[in-house]
């Protein structure tokens, strides 16, 4: 099991390196899909099955899909891919940075228990996150309303920033 987690985390870091060194937005979105996928795997392995499901549905199936369609509307015929020398330099740089951080902080990761759930983790039936969701609807009701208000606010902010066509904030629209 820890071998599986190791593979997933390795894929996570590599995917993040790919996202950070992306040559064009479409490939960054592809990297994000990979990262979200393996991140969900890491979450499941840590006991947060419901959270992983929500991440898949909302993040991948909602936000990334919307982003992919918007990016596709501004597509260019020959986007720069990962097979270019500047991208390779960036990727090597990020991998070196990750190695540096690992060297600095690496010995702390194995000694601490970074799992916040009840201790019986791996692929068992959960208690942690679904209990949290039910709390969010009961005692955390006001925070839920606040969260909904903030979503509405974000909508207004984005609409206000992008309206007006060429007379507005984004003159290229």
């Amino acid at each position, binding site marked *: 099991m820890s071998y599986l987690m190791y593979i997933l985390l390795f894929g996570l870091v590599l995917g993040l390196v790919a996202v950070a060194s992306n040559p064009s937005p479409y490939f960054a979105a592809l990297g994000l899909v990979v990262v979200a996928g393996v991140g969900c795997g890491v979450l499941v392995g840590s006991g947060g099955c419901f959270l992983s499901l929500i991440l898949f549905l909302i993040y991948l199936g909602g936000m990334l899909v919307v982003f992919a369609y918007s990016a596709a509307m501004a597509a260019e015929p020959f986007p720069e891919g990962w097979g270019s020398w500047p991208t390779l330099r960036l990727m090597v740089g990020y991998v070196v940075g990750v190695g540096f951080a690992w060297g600095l902080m690496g010995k702390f990761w194995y000694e*601490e228990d970074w799992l916040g759930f009840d201790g019986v983790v791996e692929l068992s039936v959960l208690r942690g996150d679904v209990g949290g969701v039910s709390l969010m609807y009961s005692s955390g009701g006001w*925070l839920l309303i*606040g969260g909904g*208000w903030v979503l509405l*606010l974000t909508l*207004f902010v984005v609409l206000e920033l992008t309206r007006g066509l060429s007379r507005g*904030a*984004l003159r290229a629209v």
Partner: protein
Amino acid sequence: MAPFVYSTLIISLGLGTTTTFASTHWYLAWMGIEINTLAIIPLMTQNHNPRAIEATTKYFFAQATASATLLFAAVSNAFLTGEWDILQINHPLTSTLTTLALAMKIGLAPLHSWMPEVMQGLNLLTGLILSTWQKLAPFCLIYQIQPDNPNVFITLGLLSVIVGGWGGFNQVQLRKILAYSSIAHLGWMILILPFSPPLTLLALFTYLMMTFSLFSSFMLVRTTHINSLSTSWAKIPTLTACVPLILLSLGGLPPLTGFLPKWLILQELTKQDLAPIATLAALSSLFSLYFYLRLSYTMTLTMPPNNPAGTLPWRLNPQHNTLPLALTATTTIFLLPITPTILALFTS
């Protein structure tokens, strides 16, 4: 902007600060700060000119970086100590990281470079909201940090006082001068935080009153440059008489209110055996006094060349809402004699 959207944004500004004020959990405090940042972005872009958009972009980058650092500090604290409570930041790493993140939020040196550029791109009203309301939520969190080592705060504070004074030296744009004055005053507030948090609050409230008066004065005569300030003496003669007093209060001269926080801060620093730091701070605020004096010189003490028609605007009948300025200018000029009352109010 449509009234519905405008009211949503203003309500969200209030909601964000209230959330941070009411929170004991780091997550909720961070959420309130993010709501504030999000809500003010369209208010900054409502003029739709490229300079305002540039200012908004710079503001967003600086605030997003600071918020991410703040969240990282909170999560690191939970990782290292298991505590999410705001008052329980005991680990030196997370305490320092939180301080630096909040310092970037409010624009303390050396994390101040976004402040003059952002203020320059905004109209005076939005700049006023940025200088006053947006400082309240981070200050609420700064006030609750219990520092064990005062070095970070003294460094941030002293550097801010020096940078705020020295940076404003050569400026002719009033909004940049106001930004540097904000940096200097925030430096004084942070300087005294490890020794006497009530004095920080006192300095904050007096600064809010003083800067509100100055912004309102500039808004009334509609000036953003020293050149236009010099020919605005005839617009509202009473204001021309009051603005030097507001400016000298900002500079910290007795017998005006602005002397009060500086005096008490210097006294507290001396009691803590930090007389050289107190001297350095006092001497550095002479820099700020220079440009406040220059502003009062151009507005009131001299009459630059102008055509005769420029001396008659006071005869027109303008639509002014001068009540806020009247109230805050009164507090800016006349509050020094009731120092013991103010002290009792803040240290009770």
